[in-house]
């Protein structure tokens, strides 16, 4: 077991709570805006850790750049899509949850 493998495993384990929290939030949060928040925030960080873990295992720097680019693109796309969904929901008159 190499040090890089250990580091990869550690990063992958660190990413798990983020995905778990995001999924829990998606299932349990009271309204659409909260659920969007949970999903995009948690997944972005979790995915970042997964990408970092995979970058350690990459064979060449081209693969590293491709992985990094994938993560950045998903960050941008995720943020924009969350914004679009929230905007449409607001236009349709979805009221934010108040307890």
């Amino acid at each position, binding site marked *: 077991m190499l040090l890089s493998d250990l580091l990869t495993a550690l990063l992958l384990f660190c990413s798990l709570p983020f995905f778990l929290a995001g999924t829990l939030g998606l299932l349990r949060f009271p309204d659409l805006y909260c659920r969007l928040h949970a999903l995009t925030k948690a997944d972005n960080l979790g995915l970042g850790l997964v990408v970092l873990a995979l970058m350690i295992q990459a064979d060449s720097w081209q693969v590293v750049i491709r992985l990094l680019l994938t993560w950045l*693109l998903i960050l*941008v*796309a995720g943020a*924009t899509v969350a*914004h*679009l969904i929230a*905007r449409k929901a607001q236009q349709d008159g979805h009221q934010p949850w108040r307890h």
Partner: protein
Amino acid sequence: MATLTMELTLIFDLILLFTLISMAWLLLASTDLFRAVVLFIAFGLLLSLAWVRLGAADVALAEAAIGAGITGALLLVGLGRLGSAERCRFTRVPLTFLQRLSAPLLIGIMIPSITLILVLELRLLADVAPGQQGLVNALLDISGSGHGVTAVLMNFRAWDTLLEKGVLLLALITIWSLDQARPLVHEDEISPQLTGLARLLLPIVIIVAGFVLWQGAHAPGGAFQAGALLSAGILLATLVGYTLPARRQRLSLRLLLTAGFWVFLLIAATTLLTSGYPLSYPQPLAGGLILLIELVATASIATILAAVVVGGHPPDNLSVPEDDSSASPKKRRK
């Protein structure tokens, strides 16, 4: 260690398989059409993962780009056209006891028996048959392509690919004969954030599509995947309000839509006249001809797929020079 890895991948495959089947069931049983479409897109993405697990990267790329991406967009646009009243047309009616029993009974008998038959049959197979892989690899040198799948698609079975292009074109002609295109978005509804994303993504999409096309010569990739990517770019541009200039919506657009088919057909006719067989390329020219066909096909596939999603032929009243509301596919300035 090796057996552990094998068991882990087996567990992953089984989970994937189970998720695919249950998701297919959920989407078929869904009474909410929007939910069904979203499930269909998710199903397509998981299916492309299954293709990756089977080692068919070409099919995985096509499934993700066309099956999940473009078809998903097509279904969503169609759903938008239906209006909210039609969406929930299917209401659940209370079932009788026997009706309630029939589905589980059917599944309970069907799935175990099919599984049993498959397991019994698979045990008889000593090994997975390699198919025509050996033959393709032996002939790869004369095919004009370094990648087996591209060699089959563009050379050995090029006739099928030619007809596929024809089918795509026929589908578009049918859609165009039904209705006039309606705008996908209204000018005042466009989010500045989406415009920003489009400005950022469009150059990247073009570069990646070119890369995927070029890579098709020696690795998974090719005209269909590149075309699907490019059409996603065109749709994104359409969604932020770009349109094709009115004077380009007549002949230029139609030429671009059909070019992939007729260039292919022209090469087929020429080779038929020179060598007696359609699409048997002269060996030194094979690589160049395949590249030419793929380049033109990519442009045509991209425009056709985007035009299919936009739906309907370009508006007839094209005399207005600044016709911003028309939602015809936007061709990238080349």
